[in-house]
């Protein structure tokens, strides 16, 4: 099957919208569950879209942008999975693998933008210093429009403009390369967690990290709830304890102040 120009344009438009949604993390229409469904709808085969939505969503379940990392792009993955299944007639499950390079291409572009947009910070500082809210707003929104446009163009090109070449490129990609990307995707969350730890981990929190890790290793369950609940319990215990400590310290301080202290040099 072929993708028509109209279909290509519509998909490009949807890519702009969902691209901005992903950039903002707004309504989560950037997840494959929605992307695939809408793409299927545009291509006139919504059932294909929905089935692909289920499969692709699960495949991308662990691939998140936490801690400022970028996973393989879910929008391009969603779009191309449906498009490739539609054009090549392959099953959606196979199409997920074929769509991966497109997904990774977009991932790189966003990574590049993360670095590139750093150049705006100086200018924004100047505006802020002058309290120029109008110009600040315009400049701070600029990246969003750039990103949105990029999504539109890339999506249109991949879907419509370069159907033939893309197909052959996909077929030419060696297994070890795509497998490498796949692996990278499942290791990448480590960067995000490393960043989070950088801003949170102090020596006194190491025991809790160990407890969470060990609990997750040995409690077999489909989500993080059990670990989270253990964490809530431990946090509440610590909260009550610290509060009590704080009260005591206050009392102690009062006591120390009252004892009009000449020898205060011993106190810590």
């Amino acid at each position, binding site marked *: 099957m072929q993708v028509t120009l109209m279909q290509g344009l519509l998909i490009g438009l949807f890519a702009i919208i969902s691209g901005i949604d992903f950039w*903002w*993390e*707004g*309504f989560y229409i950037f*997840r494959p*569950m*929605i992307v695939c*469904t809408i793409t299927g709808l545009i291509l006139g085969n919504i059932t294909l879209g*929905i089935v692909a*939505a*289920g499969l692709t*969503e699960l495949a991308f379940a*662990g691939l*998140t942008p936490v801690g*400022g*990392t*970028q996973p393989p792009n879910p929008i391009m993955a969603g779009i191309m999975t449906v498009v490739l299944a539609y054009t090549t007639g392959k099953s959606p499950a196979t199409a997920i693998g074929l769509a991966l390079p497109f997904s990774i291409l977009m991932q790189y572009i966003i*990574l590049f*933008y993360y*670095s590139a*947009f*750093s150049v*705006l*910070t100086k200018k*924004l500082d100047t505006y802020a210093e002058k309290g120029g*809210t109008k110009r*600040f707003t315009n400049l*701070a*929104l600029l*990246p969003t429009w750039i990103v949105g446009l990029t999504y539109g163009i890339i999506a249109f090109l991949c879907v419509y403009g370069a159907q033939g070449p893309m197909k052959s490129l996909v077929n030419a990609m060696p297994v*070890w*390369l795509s497998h*490498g*990307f796949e*692996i*990278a995707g*499942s*290791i*990448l*969350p*480590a*960067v*995000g967690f490393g*960043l*989070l*730890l950088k801003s*949170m981990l102090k020596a006194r929190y190491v025991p*809790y990290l160990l*407890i*969470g890790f*060990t609990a*997750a290793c040995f409690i077999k369950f*489909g*989500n*993080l709830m059990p*670990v989270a609940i253990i*964490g809530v319990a*431990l946090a509440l215990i610590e*909260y009550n304890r610290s509060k009590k400590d*704080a009260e005591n310290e206050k009392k102690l301080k009062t006591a120390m102040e009252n004892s009009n202290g000449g020898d205060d040099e011993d106190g810590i």
Partner: protein
Amino acid sequence: MESKQSETPTRGKLTKHDVGMLGIRSIFNQSAMNYERMQADGWTLAMIPSLKKIYKDDKKGLANAMKSNLQFINTNNYAAPLLMGLEASLEENGEKRSTIDGLRIALFGPLAGIGDAITWFTILPIVAGITASFAKQGSILGPLIFFLVYVAMFFARIPIARLGYTTGTKAISKIRENSAIVSHAASVLGCTVIGGLIATYVQITVKTKIPVTAGHTISIQTQFFDRIFPNILPLGYTFLLYWLLKKKNVSPVMLILVTFILAIVLSWLGVL
């Protein structure tokens, strides 16, 4: 108290509607995301109308507040409205800049950990898992439920922002006193769940097998690493990255790149 009054003679007051709008505007949090200071620019953008209303004609104060908000921040996007609401109430009450900035900086890390665990690693897998059951069989219920959940999540930003705001308003003195305790408890929770996240979401499986005799091989993964401790490689790699980030000041982009290259090379060698 008096001294504060004189310092901030004309602080404006946000209405309930203003705070709700602040929640909605928290959507701008990542509008200028970049590696230098992450969400700082978008964060400030989201805060602008509130700050303007609070500082009224105090141009100087507004500029000051905006600049202070432009410091590095990176937190979960559903935790952001909470923190924004909290900050707004502190600004409104004329707290010291150092208190406001200190609190924001102390809380964004733990809130990122907790928020990510709740939204990315608990709600998303639950919703995805459930709706995919429908979708895989071609039922429109799958994407529909998924969409409705996340529309609701989006509008939850309004009450979340209000929660942050009222917590701040009602309990400013308490918060100032307890900020250390709250951030301590939040870090306990955050670190526990990050421990769990590492075990669950980082996956490294060595494929290499050592041939011992003709026809017999020994798997490095199942007969070596898995016998020491489950998920020991993910833990080790995450700590390596943590160490590079913290002690060697390596940039995250660098680490992402290296991870990619490593993954591809090791895939090519057949190790991973």
